[in-house]
Structures are given as structure tokens and as C-alpha cells.
């Protein structure tokens, strides 16, 4: 079975991933997706009946810590804002998402 990916599908995924993609790149990505999905399709031939999935390999469970603030590693406001492109009176400025 080959996986046919349309540029419309690519644009839909791009929207979900919040990444702007133009039409020529969408074409290139569609080809790349098809190639990738083609390489991984043989997985379905492996018998996984009754096999449990592995989500992590450490075997550790429920690693918890006390819910206490560690002041020694808390950013100051200046540090937290140091890499922000735009700030306003000590806040991050975010793009408007609700129309006026």
C-alpha cells in the first residue's frame, strides 16, 4: 500500500502545527511524507498481537517531588524576560488572537 499525501493535507497539518508553508514547499513536504511513510510501512507486517507497548525504558514509575519553591533556581523577572522580543511593563507581549 502506498500512502498518497495531497498538498491540501499538508496545508491542514501545517495549520495544526502552526507553521506557515507555501505551495511549493507543501509539494516538497508531501513527497517527503510519502517517502517516509513508505519506509515505515513494513512495521505493520510485524506480529504485535498481545504485545504491550513500551512508552519509556527506565522502568521507573511516579517520580514525584515535594511541591516547594526552590528560590535558588527561580528566575528574576529580568532573567525571565531577557530573551523576549517584546515586553511591556514586566510582561511578555503576545499576539492578539481575538479580533477587535
Amino acid at each position, binding site marked *: 500500500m502506498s500512502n498518497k499525501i495531497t498538498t491540501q493535507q499538508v496545508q491542514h497539518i501545517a495549520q495544526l502545527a*502552526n507553521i506557515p508553508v507555501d505551495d511549493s514547499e507543501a509539494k516538497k*513536504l508531501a513527497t517527503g*511524507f510519502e517517502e*517516509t511513510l513508505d519506509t515505515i510501512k513494513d512495521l505493520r507486517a*510485524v506480529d*504485535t498481537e498481545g*504485545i504491550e*507497548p513500551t512508552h519509556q525504558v527506565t522502568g521507573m514509575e511516579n517520580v514525584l517531588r515535594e511541591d516547594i519553591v526552590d528560590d535558588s533556581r527561580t528566575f528574576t523577572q529580568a532573567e525571565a524576560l531577557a530573551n*523576549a522580543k517584546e515586553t511591556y511593563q514586566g510582561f511578555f507581549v*503576545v499576539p492578539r488572537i481575538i479580533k477587535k
Partner: protein
Amino acid sequence: MLNTLTLKQALDKLEKKEITLGDLNSDVKSAIEKLNKDLNVYLTINEKKITQAEMSAPLAGLPIAVKDNYCTKDLKTTASSTVLDNFIPQYDSTVIAKLKKAGGHIVGKTNLDAWAHGSSTETSQYGRTLNPRNTDYLPGGSSGGSAAAVAADLCLASLGTETAGSIRQPSSWCGVVGLKPTYGRCSRYGVVAMASSTDSPGPIAKTVEDSAILLNYIAGHDKYDGTTSTQKVEDYTKYLDQNITGMKIGVLYTDIEGLEEIKEIFIDQVKVFEKLGATVEFIKAMDPHHAIGVYTIIQRGEVSSNLGRFDGIRYGNDRSFFGHEAKNRIMLGTYTLSKGYAHQYYNTAQKVRTLFIEDYKKLFKDYDVLVSPTSPGYAKKIGISESSAMFGELEDMLLEPSSIAGLPGISVPCYRDPKTNLYLGMNLVAPMFREDLVIKVGDAFEKNTKWNSWRNK
């Protein structure tokens, strides 16, 4: 030319006062000035002076190169993507904090495939790195800059990260030693996340001995990374210069299509273990082609989630700055995790992952260490990765089974082609938290063959 010393040699000579740190650093600096422009190894040079505290700690302020996906306080960290073009971390990743405490001085930040997505450094948005052994060729990746920094003596040792091949494959291509620790042995805190269930920070060095020394300082439990193990960190240098008589070594993957170019050379090198008193058997393991599918699905899925944080609001540029390969991986992960497809792809992959883990458990009942070629061949020529979306996965196929199982592995040089000066690597894999075994057997191989260019000048 003190930059050509190994970490261990430099430590010994400093101790005996045969050399000074100032002379060593000026040799490293002039080598960087001479070579970095062409090789494109370092993206950022650390201008900070070595501190008294570093000099009086065990690593004595010696110059260590660091892959540019480790957050380094007050030192630009880009992960080779223009999304993080101006990102200055306000904290150190745990491994970097440990390195500094041990007296390692960061000489600079090395190039990688952008976000560590790749096996060539060609996806770096700051240009590819060239292989110092032969500049018509690539260094491999994603830790290509760190491997090249070691190969070109632009540092004494370096740090890389591996998700599936990113330490061992460039080490193989550059003729250096790459040690990928067990998942959870070294903290991921502060490392730009790629695939959280397999990301493993580790050393790239000139010798097995140097990699063991570095691992001693960077390994260990971290309360900021819940997946790190509380298992005690050993002194890994204890396992150097050991007798391997009676050890059982299983050889994998020599019959796989695509290995014809190197098969005979590799089989010849494996015989070294027999001369050293170990038993060597050629055995069958689960088909590594299946690991490509498992890894590709898991990695793309975890990438799509991890790279969701880059919104250009708190730091970095917005998402339009992602390069083609990052877009490719984020979006494929978005697709395979989406409703209706997650079962078909992600859940199946996690089940086959279980099968690989069970296969290794079975093999380790009979063998102490499993060996295979690190890469299906020599370093590839520049431009190779641009032709295929799956270039890296095919290149790393022999490493992906051990990566998805979380196992420790080391790549040691096992051949040099006299015509091209390019190297082959041998990958040694052991059970979880048995770094001691790969160090012991890797060190024995290195010291009884002529392929390590620092041991056999």
C-alpha cells in the same frame, strides 16, 4: 602542538608541570583560528576566561567543546536553528553545570543538524561542517561539530547528544570515540529536547579512556530530570586496561544488504577479540529495518510535541524560522499522532519497540557485549543528505535498535582507508547501565589495534 594531546595526557602533563594551561590553550586557540573558518565546527567561541575554580577542579580548566543544543548560561545556544538565533540561556543545563564544576572549560559551541534532526550537519541553518579527516566529506551528525572538533584537535574532548546515532555515527565518520550512555544515565535537563524518550547526552573523545573520564563527571541522578536513574555512578576508569579473556561477544548485522563495502574489513577486525581471549560468534538479531519505522514514528511524534514550545514569545523567533527538515519532522509527527492514525502508527511502533527490548534481553543471556559496524559505510560526500527525506534513518539503522531500547553503546575506530583517510567505527552495545562493559571491551580493542590516531601517531 599541545592541542593534539588526549585529555588524559594533558591532565598528567599538567600534574607533572611539564606543560602549562596557558600554552595548551593558546595552541587550541591558534588551531581554531586556522581551521574553523573552513571546517565550520564552532558556531560560538566562549570568550570568558578560565576561572580559578575550574583550574583547581579535577579537569583543571581544560578546553571542552559543547554541542550547541546544551543550554549554557550567558553563552548563545542556537541548536543550529535561526529560531534560536539570539537565544542567551539564563541557566546551565545539568550536564554543563556538572562539567563546569568538574573543571571543564567550554571552549565553544559546536555545529549540529538543526535541532539535532539529521546525520550529516547539512540541515544546520548555519551551514554544514566538513570532515577534518577529508574535507570533501561530511562529518556525520547530528553531533558532527563535536566529533569534528575532536578529530581536528580544536579541543581536548567534547560533549554530544544522541537520540539514535547522533553521538556514535559522527564519531565513526570522523575517526573518534563516541560514548552514548544508557538512557537516564545523564540528565536531559537544559538540553534542547528532541525525542524525550531516547535523548541521551554523552561524551565524544579522542580515546575510550577520555570518554570514561568525562562520563565520570557528567553522569548521575538529577532531581530536575525525572527520568534520570538513582543508580550509583561508578568510576568508569576502573574498567580500562582489563583482560577480556572469556568474555562472550556476539556479532550482529554483518549479513545485511548495503554493508558489502565494509563487511570483510569489519569481520577481520572482530577477530581481534579472539586473539584477546574472548569468544566471538556471528548471531542473528531482530531485523534492524523495523527499528527505522519504530524510531521514525516515535521521534517525529515526540519532535512535534517538543517543538511546540517555540512560539517566539518568551524567547527566540517565531515558527516561520523553522528550516525544511524541522517542518518535515514536526508535521509528520503531527500527522502520525492525529486522530485515526495514532493507533496505526504510534501504538504499533511502541509495541515493536517492546519486541526489540525482549530480543536484546534474550541475546544478553548468552553474550556480554554485542558488536556491529556503527555505520553501513564511510563518511559520505557533501550534499548527500539533500536527496532523501529518510537519509539519516537509513544511515543510522544499525544504531536505532539499541537507541530505542535505551542501551549504552560506544563507537571506536576500527579501520582507516589509506586512500581517503576516512574511518570506520565499531559499535559495542551492553545491557542497561553496563557502560563498564562497553568501556572495557572498547578500550581493549583500541589498545590492541592501530586505528586510534592519537594512540598511534
